[in-house]
């Protein structure tokens, strides 16, 4: 197997607060290969966004403690100097965020933003950078790119603005794009457009994508590999088909069962997970963090389980006997007729 593009090893991110230490990411390890699309799924508090922000050094909090390694093309991003990291950001690893409304400084035009990024990394004239900006806007499907390059962010609709952000992110041909909930704030038909755009750009430029989302459907549509996060740890990870067809972790079962069926059938009730997603401030981490909400909790859920590879390439961190999983999954995903 070729050398991975991004190799995250035992990443831990915590924040010192007045009430104690809050652990947002609790030791995750994963790799992203060249050309891979990896989906990182989780709900609020799972640590999915924080983990990728910390890899790029974008957490502007002096009380944040980051441990572990994040090797990008062999170099550890977490120990790089500010200057080295700045050279990586935008040029080799690009990141786009959820809300296109607030992602661009409102007083500068689209062309200015793209041009700023290009000129931060390459020695080109303003004119040349602007010309490239027009090309990029065209490539992401913005009509009248030559005119629109002089438009301000508020003059674009939500979907168009996200396209501008994507154009900007890809302007220096990064090998890795991190997309943090890129379509959550958009309407579903616009979301389909943006996802299709990302997919086509990815195959055209060959960049890898880490797609952070809470939407299992988006992950299923876009990614080659899926990683499910809960409470700052990986609950399950594996090839997309494997995880979708044969999920092994009770949290993944719960997540998938919480989504109403999309095949046209209707059920009276959904097999919901009881309780609320874990708060990162909980100090007791010496057990499986999902056990508080799990139907199959037992004493073996303490201490905190590690990721185990039961099927080649497919990992999960549940201690339930592997042989029982299929049956337990069937139970977990069958909705109850009446409230418990």
């Amino acid at each position, binding site marked *: 197997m070729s050398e991975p593009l991004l190799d995250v090893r035992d990443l831990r991110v915590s924040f010192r607060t007045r009430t104690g230490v809050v652990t947002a990411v609790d030791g995750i390890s994963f790799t992203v290969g060249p050309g891979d699309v990896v989906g990182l799924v989780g*709900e*609020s508090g799972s640590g999915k966004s924080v983990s990728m922000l910390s890899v790029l050094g974008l957490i502007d909090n002096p009380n944040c403690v980051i441990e572990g390694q994040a090797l990008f093309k062999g170099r550890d991003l977490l120990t790089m100097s500010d200057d080295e990291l700045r050279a990586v950001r935008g040029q080799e690893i690009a990141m786009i965020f959820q809300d296109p409304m607030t992602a661009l400084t409102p007083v500068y035009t689209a062309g200015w933003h793209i041009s700023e990024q290009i000129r931060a990394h390459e020695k080109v004239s303003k004119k040349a950078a602007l010309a490239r900006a027009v090309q990029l806007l065209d490539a992401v499907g913005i009509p009248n790119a030559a005119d629109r390059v002089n438009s301000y962010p508020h003059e674009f*609709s*939500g*979907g*168009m603005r996200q396209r501008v952000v994507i154009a900007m992110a890809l302007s220096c041909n990064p090998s890795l794009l991190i997309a943090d909930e890129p379509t959550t704030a958009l*309407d*579903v*038909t*616009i*979301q*389909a*457009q943006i*996802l*299709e755009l990302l*997919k086509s750009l990815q195959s055209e430029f060959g960049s890898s994508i880490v797609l952070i989302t*809470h*939407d*299992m*459907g*988006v992950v*299923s*549509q*876009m990614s080659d590999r899926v990683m499910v996060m809960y409470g700052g740890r990986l609950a399950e990870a594996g090839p*997309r*088909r494997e995880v*979708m*067809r044969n999920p092994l972790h009770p949290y993944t079962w*719960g*997540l*998938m*069962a*919480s*989504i*109403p*069926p*999309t*095949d*046209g059938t*209707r*059920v*009276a*009730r*959904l*097999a*919901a*997970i*009881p309780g*609320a*997603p874990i708060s990162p401030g909980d100090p007791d981490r010496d057990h499986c963090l999902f056990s508080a909400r799990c139907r199959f909790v037992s004493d073996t859920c303490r201490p905190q389980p590690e990721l185990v590879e039961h099927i080649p390439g497919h990992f999960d961190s549940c201690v339930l006997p592997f042989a029982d999983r299929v049956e337990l999954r069937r139970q977990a995903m069958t909705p109850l007729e*009446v*409230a418990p």
Partner: protein
Amino acid sequence: MSEPVVDEGGLLLKARQIAKHFPIRTSQGKQLVQAVDGVSLSVRAGETLGLVGESGCGKSTLGRCLVRLLDPTSGEVIFDGVDITTKSRRELRTLRLGFQMIFQDPYASLNPRRRALATVEEPMLTHSLGTNAEIRARALMLLEQVGFDPSYADRYPHEFSGGQRQRLGIARALAVAPKLLIADEPVSALDVSIQAQVLNLLSDLQRDNDLTYVFIAHDLAVVHHIADRIGVMYLGELVEVGSSTDVYTAPRHPYTEALISAIPVIDAEAEMRERIVLTGDLPSPIDKPAGCAFNPRCHYAQDICRTDKPTLQLLDDGREVACHFPL
């Protein structure tokens, strides 16, 4: 070609040609936002009608017009046989006991300075629905019904999670024992696992309290799950109405078809399947296209679609579609 005819007997809510226009001043002068543009619908007692659509389709505005949180520019809303659009504020007050609303943002719709119990008691106190002791007892009962332990009664909204706040909003809405509940995107702001809990709660409450729902959302999968009938809205108009499963599995309006196709599904087998991806942006309700509002983005558009506006018609299979060439 016929006007949809429904048996008037079991109808709890009937809306006729509701329109809501907002005059605004833009750089082009005075313009009109046609948020809702002639919508007629009906809801039977005990059923759930889902209203689905994307930004700017007018579903939230319509929801507010149905309970007269906004006054419709024209049209009538008849609730339980009474035309509420012509009633004065004073007369509406007692009528409002029959219909209530729950909102999308559970934090913004709760008074942050009021404890949970007081929030649920308030509507009952406003309408003097009993002695203080009776009201308090009923409020505690409602909190339990939505899944709260009695110890939560003294907490403030900021001490609740998003899903819990939404439950509180539901309890408050049920305080006056309404017959109709209009839910405006009640689960859109919640995590997926919490969303499922709240949806289950809404189903249970409907069954236990004999409620009728109008469920407004942009997520067609969620609406398909909870609603018996679905109305699809686009740019202020109803483009398709029908039974939930029928609309979802066999859409007959091109927009519905594209909407369903756009939903990312957990389909282990599918690679990028053949999807209908609409081009262009959602047009603005200020500058609606001539003819059929959907024609600029429609794959099946023909000349007549650009000039003649189709009206909602009843087809032989019970579906209502506003299209010159239903699928």
